[in-house]
């Protein structure tokens, strides 16, 4: 590993000054960055530990009901947070899939998103809840949908001076439920061959008034399955409908073939996981077994 300087800023202002240095890398949990530095896949002149910055830590509910999660909050802290478990169950359960307990104790939500792996397990749930990323850099602040952050494998549209401060999860309408499931050959400690997050919101008559389907590991970035969402809109939940949504989602995917699975297999997984996550969300809403 090359030599690097190390800083531990205690405010966002200090962080932004440090980040203005060329070749400065933020260190959150380090579960992606440290192996990358060790293996020489990244070189850093400056490593900036963000875990001591209050604005990037902590989970809080804002006045309008939005849940704000600091970028440097750990997977374990989210998985154990009562507000997250109650209102954003798909996120709380998806962060609990990241590696092992040891990894979850370090890994942060911001790191999962900024590392921008197409297989990142926390991203589909964030997309399903229409989460916004609060970003700050040399040119000021901006907020964008998490969905719009990704430009390629390992790449986001953050410019070199920018950092991700927090995630804003809007209050969900009353009859809303979501789920994320992934397929891995091993139950734990494995990378998703495919992953699907789904969210539906129902009106008083039980009709679907909002739907989100987000896919992991089946494209160069996390993807939204727009045609699957179209299939679901204005319909009532049924296994037939979810079957059709699954078929549409498989078409929305643009997987590659690699050692973990062929493109065709991945499309099949998408259709099955789409169906299952929709059924799971519906179960939760209708509070009884639903097939």
């Amino acid at each position, binding site marked *: 590993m090359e030599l*690097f300087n190390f800083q531990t800023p205690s405010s966002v202002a200090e962080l932004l000054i440090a980040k203005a240095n060329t070749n400065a890398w933020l260190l959150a949990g380090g579960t992606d960055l440290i192996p990358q530095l060790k293996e020489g896949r990244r070189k850093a002149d400056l490593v900036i530990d963000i875990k001591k910055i209050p604005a990037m830590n902590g989970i809080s509910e804002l006045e309008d009901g939005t849940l704000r999660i600091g970028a440097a909050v750990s997977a374990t802290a989210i998985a154990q947070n009562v507000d997250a478990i109650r209102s954003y169950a798909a996120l709380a359960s998806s962060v609990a899939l990241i590696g092992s*307990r040891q990894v979850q104790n370090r890994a942060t939500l911001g790191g999962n998103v900024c590392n921008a792996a197409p297989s990142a397990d926390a991203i589909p749930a964030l997309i399903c809840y229409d989460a916004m990323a609060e970003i700050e850099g040399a040119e000021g602040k901006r907020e964008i949908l998490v969905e719009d952050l990704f430009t390629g494998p390992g790449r986001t549209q953050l410019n070199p001076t920018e950092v991700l401060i927090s995630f804003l999860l809007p209050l969900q309408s009353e009859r809303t439920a979501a789920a994320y499931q992934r397929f891995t050959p091993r139950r734990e400690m494995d990378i998703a061959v495919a992953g699907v997050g789904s969210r539906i919101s129902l009106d008083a008559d039980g009709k679907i008034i909002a739907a989100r389907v987000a896919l992991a590991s089946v494209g160069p970035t996390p993807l939204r399955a727009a045609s699957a969402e179209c299939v679901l809109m204005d319909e009532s939940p049924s296994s037939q409908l979810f079957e059709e949504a699954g078929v549409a989602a498989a078409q929305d995917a643009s997987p590659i073939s690699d050692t973990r699975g062929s493109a065709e297999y991945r499309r099949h997984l998408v259709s099955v996981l789409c169906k299952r996550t929709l059924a799971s969300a519906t179960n939760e809403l209708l509070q009884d077994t639903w097939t």
Partner: protein
Amino acid sequence: MSKEILECSVNGEQQSCLIDRRDTLLELLRTRLQLTGTKEGCGNGNCGSCTVIVDSQTVCSCLMFAVEAQDCEITTIEGVASVGELHRVQEALIKHGGTQCGFCTPGVVMSAVGLFAENPSPNESDIRLAIAGNICRCTGYEKIVKALMDVADPKGAD
């Protein structure tokens, strides 16, 4: 210029050491502090043999820079037993044969100690999840799980 003074507590003892910023916590423990009970298997977070407890949380010490441990309280396998008395997790692993070559054992013990500190009566699936990040080449896990079930519920039927 790559050196830094690190102050932390290791197994209850205050330490002040000059470290290289590139050192992982694992390197600090094994090389500088000679606490070689903590093992290095993979060096990238996959095997869990380097598991230690930092401020009440289990972590892979290979995935943490030593500088990140500034002012932290660290417990390694050497700090688990009290004088002359093994921790009940260690007793149970011996009793049930939950250790063979022993390479994974320090990490397994640390994960289990972390689990019981958080949840005194975990069920089998809690136990399996807690040690999912600890790879064992020898035991096939059954005897480790049995041992930890015994700790969770010593009166439980075998």
